[in-house]
Each structure stands twice: as structure tokens, then as C-alpha cells.
């Protein structure tokens, strides 16, 4: 190689995180030969060329062993497909127009996304049977959403081997964000585990990487009017009306008072809260009462997931042959109260635990 070619190779190697020993093909040929006389001189873009180079097979092998799929996936080419975002195709055809199109992770990522959504939803729903629906959705996003997938990809070490391209054409409307490109990789890996093993194995993969992360559920729950919600919730459970009671106070009429208020239903204390005013303490007590209910969790060793009924044998859900796993469904929690809907005043939705069933309202037609 001449000096200029060596210089190009080392510059490109620095950009592409690859060693210059691995760079066999250099770009000069397709730029110099075969150009028409009137065409402007081609400018070599080292960055694009470096980005279009495949990562060395040793990097892919190291990556797949690092995440524990060394014996699952048949060859590093499969992993190369999993780390290739669809936006890469355009870059590849620009740089290597004569080579076949690279395999991308588009369908793998879609399949993996569906699988992760399934696993996360059943996990969160079985763990927190009394969680409101909107919070359940937020929790599922927190566990397997795009941000989490992108962070997980960075932690796995996907950044140097990810193959993607930021913008498809001159316009920036179809641009791809780096985080979105990264997020496609863990989804694709989940789909690969399903393909090469089974649904149960894919769930184990999700449990290891996604459900082991700490998700703070308390911060996801915000209330518009916790007192009103608590009133409706307690009525649904058929208990006495909640009454706020002052447990402790100090510094009233001073610059920094502290009040501790508890909300009682009969003799049961539903929740407790402190504040610098009576209203603030009552608000927090109502929030605490509802959070104690919503964040009631199934202990991990007693968790029952519906996907356990699939046999733990190699093959997809249609072909796997084996004994079905045990699953005993837990009783459904009462759904959360819906308020603020003006048109439904007067329609009562009974809770499973409600005691008060008036004789004249036993006609089921009026229940929604």
C-alpha cells in the first residue's frame, strides 16, 4: 500500500473503531474508474466509508458471548443482522453499489418488540394486580420502552458495532435518532432467542436484562384529586366513608408548622401524611391511602405468569412439544375508579368486595 492509502486506512480505522489490519478493501477503485468525462471529481468521505465497513468477526463473537448467547446463535452473521438498522441499507448501497443488500433487523426488532410487550405486561399485571391501567402502561414502557432498550444496548456494548445511518435523504424528516437505532438491537436479540430456542427462553432473556432493572412505581402515579378518588374507591370496596383525623401537630400559627393527618374508614387507618398545612397533610394522606392499595405487590416467589403454560422446549409456540407449565390465575383486582366523566352520573359499577347491594338495584341491566 502507498503512503496515501495507508493514511486513509488509519484515519478510517480510527473512525470505525476497527483495527487497520482488518481493512482489506480500499475505496479508490469505484471512485476513479468508470466515471464519465463530464462528472465532477468524486470526493472520498472517510466517515461514510468507515461506517459502511463491517465490524470484525472477533468483535461480534466477543459481543455475543458477553451477553450470554454464545451457544444460542449459530454464527456471527446472525448477530451482524441483529445490529444492522434498516437505515444502514442506503449508506451501504452508496458505498458498495455492486454488493448484495445487507440483512437488517427490521422484522426481528418488530417481533422482539411484541414479545417484550407481552412479557412486560403480564409481569407488571401479575406483580401489581391493583394498579390503574394508565400506570400499568407507563410501567410497561419503563421496563421495555425505547429509552430502556437504548440504555440497555449501550450497557451491552452495542455502540461500536451498531450499523446505522442518521438521515435517509437531504431532508431531515426521515432522520433516525441514535437512540432509536440502538433500541432496535435488544428487541432483535429477544427475537433471536425466540427463534433459536423458545418463548420461555426469550422470557428468561427478558427477565435477566429487563426485569432485573429497578423501576420506581411510586413516581409514576400522579393524582388530580386523591380525596375524590379515595372517596369513590372506598365506596367501591363497601367500607365506611373516609374521615380525616389529626394524629399529631406542632407549631400551629408559627412559621413552620407540621401536621400529621391520618385518613380513617371506621377504625381502620387507610393512610397517613404530613404537611405544613392541614390541607397538605390531608392531600398526602389520601395519596398514601391510594398508593398502599395500588402498589400492593405479589411476592416474587408466588408470581404466576400466563406464558408459563407454554412448554419449556425448543421450538416456536406452534411446534414446541412438552408438558405445559403450571399456572393458577389470581383473582382480578377491582378496576380503578373512573371519575370526571360527566355523562355517566348515576351509573354504578359494583366492586367485587362491595357489601352494600340494595334490593332495588339488583337489575343487572343498569350496570355497565
Amino acid at each position, binding site marked *: 500500500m502507498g503512503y496515501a492509502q495507508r493514511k486513509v486506512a488509519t484515519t478510517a480505522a480510527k473512525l470505525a473503531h476497527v483495527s487497520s489490519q482488518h481493512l482489506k478493501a480500499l475505496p479508490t477503485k469505484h471512485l476513479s474508474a468508470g466515471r464519465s468525462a463530464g462528472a465532477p471529481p468524486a470526493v472520498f468521505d472517510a466517515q461514510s466509508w468507515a461506517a459502511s465497513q463491517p465490524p470484525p468477526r472477533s468483535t461480534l463473537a466477543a459481543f455475543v458471548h458477553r451477553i450470554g448467547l454464545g451457544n444460542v446463535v449459530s454464527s456471527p452473521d446472525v448477530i451482524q443482522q441483529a445490529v444492522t438498522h434498516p437505515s444502514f441499507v442506503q449508506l451501504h448501497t452508496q458505498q458498495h453499489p455492486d454488493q448484495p443488500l445487507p440483512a437488517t433487523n427490521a422484522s426481528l426488532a418488530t417481533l422482539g418488540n411484541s414479545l417484550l410487550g407481552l412479557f412486560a405486561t403480564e409481569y407488571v399485571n401479575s406483580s401489581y394486580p391493583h394498579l390503574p391501567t394508565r400506570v400499568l402502561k407507563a410501567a410497561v414502557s419503563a421496563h421495555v420502552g425505547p429509552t430502556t432498550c437504548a440504555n440497555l444496548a449501550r450497557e451491552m456494548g452495542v455502540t461500536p458495532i451498531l450499523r446505522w445511518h442518521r438521515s435517509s435523504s437531504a431532508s431531515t424528516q426521515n432522520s433516525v435518532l441514535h437512540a432509536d437505532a440502538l433500541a432496535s438491537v435488544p428487541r432483535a436479540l429477544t427475537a433471536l432467542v425466540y427463534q433459536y430456542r423458545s418463548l420461555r427462553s426469550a422470557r428468561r432473556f427478558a427477565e435477566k436484562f429487563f426485569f432485573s432493572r429497578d423501576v420506581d412505581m411510586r413516581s409514576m402515579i400522579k393524582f388530580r384529586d386523591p380525596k375524590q378518588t379515595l372517596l369513590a374507591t372506598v365506596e367501591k370496596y363497601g367500607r365506611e366513608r373516609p374521615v380525616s383525623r389529626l394524629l399529631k401537630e406542632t407549631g400551629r400559627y408559627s412559621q413552620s408548622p407540621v401536621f400529621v393527618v391520618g385518613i380513617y374508614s*371506621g377504625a381502620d387507618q387507610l393512610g397517613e401524611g404530613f404537611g405544613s398545612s392541614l390541607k397538605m397533610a390531608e392531600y398526602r394522606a389520601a395519596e398514601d391511602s391510594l398508593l398502599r392499595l395500588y402498589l400492593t*405487590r405479589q411476592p416474587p416467589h408466588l408470581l404466576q405468569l400466563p406464558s408459563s403454560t407454554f412448554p419449556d422446549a425448543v421450538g416456536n409456540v406452534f411446534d414446541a412439544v412438552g408438558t405445559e407449565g403450571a399456572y393458577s390465575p389470581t383473582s382480578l383486582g377491582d378496576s380503578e375508579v373512573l371519575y370526571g366523566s360527566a355523562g355517566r352520573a348515576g351509573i354504578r359499577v359494583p366492586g367485587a368486595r362491595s357489601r352494600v347491594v340494595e334490593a332495588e338495584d339488583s337489575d343487572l341491566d343498569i350496570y355497565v
Partner: protein
Amino acid sequence: MKPRLSLSSPLRFTRSYATRLPERPPSRNPDPLLNNPYAVYKDLPENVTFIHRPPPTAPSPLSYTTLPASPLLQSSATPVDRPLPPSLWKDKGEKPRVSDEDIARIRQLRREDPQTWTRGRLAAEFNCTQWFVGKITSLKSADRKKVVAEVEKAHAANRDKWGERRKLNADIRKKRKEFW
């Protein structure tokens, strides 16, 4: 009568009655760590005692279905056997139920003339709460928006009369409420 000292004595300025203390005595408050009803003591080997003292008003972050923290999930309500802490608000007592004829009358009046028969006036007339009147009646969306806009205009006119300090205090209270 107490014997008085002669003026020539060197102790002429000694008072014979008890004086108040010149300094505030150091406050001797009982140690809250002792006699804590929530404290749990456990003896460990090597003469070590492990004392667990959770703050008495911290809500429990752990609630399991096997041992729920919310009494709503327990099978039945506990019976009231001891006096409970004082209620925050005065118990106004329940108002008598509004009869069906009165409910129909309320709806009719509100439909006919919402300007005269406001929620407040209907509540006073039929001895119920404004909230109840709002539950059984409702204006059409366009009318409601008009009324709300008028009320908001009146409130905004009042707010314009506020001085800087009042505005600032109101904003501070609004911001504090966000952190409740």
C-alpha cells in the same frame, strides 16, 4: 417579720426572697429514642443489641398481597372499640335525601333559567349541596363555556387589582401546591 440586715453590713444587697433564675435552664427533654412504642429490640451474638426504630409516620413502602398495607384489601373492617383521633373538619351532619319530585323540579328550573337558578341558589332552596345539584343537572357545553368565561373574567379583573406582594404570595402558594 424577717430580721433586716443593717446597712453597714457588707451583705447589704442580698435579697431575702427567692429571685427568678438569671439564665434559662437547659431544656431537659425526654430522649425520644427511649420508650419508643415502634422500637423493636433484637439480641445478636457477641453482646450486641439490634434496635429497629422506624419513623412513626413514614408510610410503609412495602405492601404485599399476602400482607397488604391497605385495610381495604383485608377481609373485613375492624370494629370500633377505642376512641379515635379528632376529626379534622367539623361534622356538619348529613342533609336529608332530596325527593324525586324535588330532583325533577331542580332539573326543570336549571333548564329553564340557568342565570337565575344557579347551583348555589338551587342548593339553598332545596336544602342540598351545590355538588349534588351539579351531579343531577348539567348545562350544554356551549352555555357552560360561556358561564365559565364570564366568571373567569370577573376573577381576572379582581386579580388585576392585586398589588405586587399579593401576586407574589399567590404564586408562591400555587407553586408550593405543586409539591404537595
